[in-house]
């Protein structure tokens, strides 16, 4: 029985002008493009400069800032008010104001003040831009210190140089952080959305009624719906892993089998979630919106973009209920740290819990509606 239904499903699957293409194109474009776009590294910060001093020290500082590559000097204003206007008109993100007699004060008192003002409308850009600038200035002040001391040639001030070692992602590449998570997002879409929409589509067309009056068991019918999308899930995952290897030079530190094993549980859980939706939705449009609402919530609560630890307490609590959170943790750990199954047992338990919960709910709600 299942064989005939599967034959039908695969025929329909490949006859569909859109789904097979999506199974190929979605992971390709997601893995190729999303990591480039979803990037929090801040470059091209527009800096407005107010140099009241115009000394060799202040020029040195400005050169250093420009040489860092993070900043564009968009204008040089004569006073702070003018500089503020460029911020107001959105031409500049930061103002660096060098006070009059900067050089003289620095040489005389070994201490001088600078002012940085940031436009925090885009908090990310303002914050990171300020941090970059502060680092450059402190670097610069270290050099000045050495230079001034060197002139006198007597005392050596111990200079603390901090070189952090970023474990697991040594160059802090954002793509390394994002790619495993995006793989999962694509998997969720293909294995959660599509079978749910397919089943609701049969409801909408009335074809499910025609099937219900036959001896086909509901279980068989639903399994025949899920299998093509489970298989597409593996295809999608494999394409994603291959592309991230070729394009992003990313290969899991851990075992591939661990990834496929966890992906299987996740697919099971998330297709169960799709079934729950399909039981409550009457039209494809309803199903689409319901899926969209939950998937969006799951994604934002999963730590895909922002770390869960940054969220307020209540949101951290809600994030426990996002299956995406656990599978994204798994992928990042396997990809970056090379974690093995033993280190992933909490995630394993959580994902199994979701699989049982969603599929159990799907079975119960299906019975109710008939």
């Amino acid at each position, binding site marked *: 029985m299942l064989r005939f*239904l599967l034959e039908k499903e695969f025929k*329909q699957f490949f006859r569909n002008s859109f789904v097979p293409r999506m199974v190929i194109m979605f992971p390709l474009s997601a893995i190729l493009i999303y990591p480039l776009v979803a990037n929090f590294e801040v470059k091209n910060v527009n800096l407005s400069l107010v140099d009241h001093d115009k000394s060799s020290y202040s020029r040195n500082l400005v050169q250093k800032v420009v040489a860092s590559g993070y900043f564009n000097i968009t204008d040089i204003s004569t006073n702070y008010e003018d500089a503020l206007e460029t911020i107001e008109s959105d031409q500049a993100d930061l103002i660096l104001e060098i006070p009059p007699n900067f050089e003289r004060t620095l040489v005389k008192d070994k201490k001088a003040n600078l002012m940085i003002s940031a436009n925090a409308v885009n908090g990310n850009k303002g914050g990171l831009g300020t941090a970059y600038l502060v680092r450059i200035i402190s670097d610069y002040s270290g050099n000045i210190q050495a230079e001034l001391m060197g002139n006198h040639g007597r005392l050596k001030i111990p200079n603390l140089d901090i070189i952090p070692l970023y474990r697991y992602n040594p160059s802090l590449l954002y793509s390394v952080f994002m790619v495993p998570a995006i793989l999962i997002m694509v998997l969720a879409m293909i294995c959660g959305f599509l079978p749910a929409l397919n089943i609701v589509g049969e409801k909408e067309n*009335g074809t499910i009624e025609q099937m219900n009056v036959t001896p086909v068991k509901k279980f068989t019918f639903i399994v025949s719906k899920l299998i093509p999308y489970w298989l597409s899930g593996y295809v999608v995952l494999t394409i994603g892993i291959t592309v991230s290897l070729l394009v992003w030079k990313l290969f899991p530190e851990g075992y591939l089998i661990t990834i496929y094993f966890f992906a299987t549980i996740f697919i099971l859980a998330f297709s169960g979630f799709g079934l729950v939706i399909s039981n409550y939705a009457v039209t494809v449009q309803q199903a689409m919106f319901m899926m969209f609402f939950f998937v969006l919530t799951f994604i934002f609560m999963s730590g895909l973009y922002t770390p869960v630890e940054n969220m307020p307490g209540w949101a951290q609590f809600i994030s426990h209920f996002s299956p995406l959170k656990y599978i994204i943790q798994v992928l990042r750990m396997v990809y970056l740290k090379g974690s093995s199954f033993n280190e992933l047992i909490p995630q394993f338990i959580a994902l199994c819990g979701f699989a049982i919960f969603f599929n159990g709910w799907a079975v119960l709600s299906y019975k109710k509606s008939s």
Partner: protein
Amino acid sequence: MKAVIVQELERSYDKVEALKGISFEVDQGEIFGIIGPDGAGKTTLFRILTTLLLADSGFASVDGNEVVKDYKSIRKKIGYMPGRFSLYQDLTVEENLKIFASIFKTTIEENYHLIKDIYQQIEPFKKRKAGALSGGMKQKLALSCALIHKPVVLFLDEPTTGVDPVSRKEFWDMLDKLKHQGITILVSTPYMDEASLCNRIGLIQDGNFLKIDTPENIINQYENVLLAAQSNQMSKLLKDLRTEEDINTCFAFGDSHHITIKKESLAENGGNFSIDKLTMDLSNKGHKDIHIEPIKAGIEDCFMELAK
């Protein structure tokens, strides 16, 4: 054994009572027509009998199997054709037929004799997707799919709604052939003219049967004097006829109005009604080309009488 037994079946949707305790029986090998307007409860009844819907109370059985307890055995031996085309539009004609044959663990070849007459007409298009068929061809395909497993009872929910008159005629000819193959057919329709093609009919309205009998008996039991009236101003005629004191009811029926006369107005009961008198009255009211004649009642007239 009766093919279908229904006793005191009730079903409500929220506050609307779709079926108000109906009972009827269908003999094996007959065409039983359920005839009534939209919203009478026909589809609800069909969905209960085809095990798609649970009744609130009452008993129903199909071919000796109770619809709730033995739903699995019922699903093996009935054919159901819903009012809406419900086959896979993205599969071809042949693929649709094949999938339904294999679900019932049979093949197209095995029961080809059953569907031959119908399927031959759509066979030239067997590689065409079902969604690309015309309305009449879709009906034929749906009937083929419902028949491919040689069902004992065939449920057809408004099979001719939205089908052209020629295809409708063909469709009923096919049903007659199927009846001779020993298949019991339950068919619902809002078209009263199709009633005479059934062995027995049940007139249904608002979830109740008004009458269950053969079409001939129902017509013979019609007691009123029925006249058909025409004039040059049909809509004014309807209004004028309804104000006539001798006239009991008056309904628009295609190109004429059907009127019934009050019993006490008839000459045999001492009344003074006559066609000439009515014609005179109407011509005084400005009607021309008045044409009134007695006619034999049809099922629709009976339905109107019973539904009053």
